[in-house]
């Protein structure tokens, strides 16, 4: 059984192919860490798998509504308190367990504070706590540890281990070592060859 299977995937950003020919699969309990230099297309690949943009080629197989996506922006409303922000996402995703999510990221003392008054690292912790209330099996994370301090990184790694041990899976783009038992996929060999814009099919014929 696999949660996510990717075959020969080609993704593009702004009409330019970034990586091509990427294949991997994730079973419950597995984590895959994406590596590669800036601009190779880690974020584009993650957004494609999260369903925010269509792939240019290849296939993505996974159950519907399996992905919880977390990127650089945490989707927080400054006028709402920490607990209200979490409660909103819990309702949208049909999840729950706000208390547990708050304590996993050590946010209980901040629960009633408006999100606008949080530091960058605290906002990040709230953004990661959202993953717990979303109750999705596949976490797709883009640089999850940005602006976290060392203690919070450890706490996040613990949360990640808990998720994996409960049968979840994770796809993470990160440059730091989380101390997880995870495979590493370096995207450098998959860099797209030739910088030709991927035009829609039939474009050349129409203008020939």
């Amino acid at each position, binding site marked *: 059984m696999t949660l996510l299977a990717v075959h020969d995937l080609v993704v593009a950003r702004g009409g330019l192919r970034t990586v091509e020919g990427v294949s991997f699969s994730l079973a419950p309990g597995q984590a895959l860490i994406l590596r590669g230099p800036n601009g190779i297309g880690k974020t584009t690949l993650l957004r494609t798998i*999260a369903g925010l943009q269509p792939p240019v080629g290849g296939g993505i197989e996974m159950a519907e509504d399996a992905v919880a*996506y977390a990127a650089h922006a945490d989707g927080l409303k400054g006028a709402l308190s920490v607990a209200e922000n979490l409660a909103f996402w819990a*309702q949208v995703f049909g999840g729950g367990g706000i208390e547990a999510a708050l304590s996993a990221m050590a946010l209980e003392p901040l629960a009633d504070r408006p999100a606008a008054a949080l530091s960058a690292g605290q906002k990040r912790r709230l953004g990661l706590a959202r993953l717990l209330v979303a109750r999705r099996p596949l976490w797709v994370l883009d640089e999850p540890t940005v602006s976290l301090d060392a203690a919070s990184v450890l706490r996040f790694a613990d949360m990640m281990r808990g998720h994996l041990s409960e049968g979840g899976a994770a796809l993470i783009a990160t440059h730091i070592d989380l101390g997880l038992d995870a495979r590493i996929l370096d995207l450098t060999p998959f860099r797209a060859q030739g910088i030709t814009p991927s035009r829609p099919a039939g474009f050349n014929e129409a203008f020939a």
Partner: protein
Amino acid sequence: MIALLRRDLRLAVRAGGGFGLGVAFFLILCSLVPFGVGPDSGALQPIAPGILWLGALLACLLSLDRIFALDHEDGSLDLLATSPLPLEGAVAIKALAHWITTGLPLIVAAPLFGILLHLPAGAIPSLLVSLLVGTPALSMLGAFGAAVTVGLRRGGLLLSLLVLPLYIPTLIFGTEMIRRGQQGGDAATPLLFLAGITAGVLAVIPFAAAAALRVNLR
């Protein structure tokens, strides 16, 4: 969906949310007009329906760009797109929240502003009904414009240029209905057109706006 509606309403009411901004703008517009054209009822009465509807259009326009821009900036829109909520539903809910925070206060305040413009008391019911039936279309068309321009810097001006022409049919039939109410004519025909426009917009626009959002999220 209810959660999204509640969040949007709560955000609008809290500091910096802009609740009541539309009504305040409407009030200022309606009180400026008598200064501009003179306070005698002979000059004001014929233009009152047009001024009231133009005020409603512009007041509605003020807060349109917030419908999606703020959610796009803080990443909520990406998360909503990956949530179990269909994007079409999210568009409809956000347009509804916009209508509750902008359109509904306008409707409640409109009779007062009608008096400022010397609108006869007999025309007040048709003013209320025309706004009640017409303003949902304004919010929904605005949501479409906001979806098309989301992610653009200074998208607000482009949004106005895109959306205002789409408001023309609602404006025509809305003012016509008040005018007929004023003169004691049959207001049913403009009302039916107004309701038809609103119904069509409510049925089609969520899909168009969601498609525009999907393109803009890429």
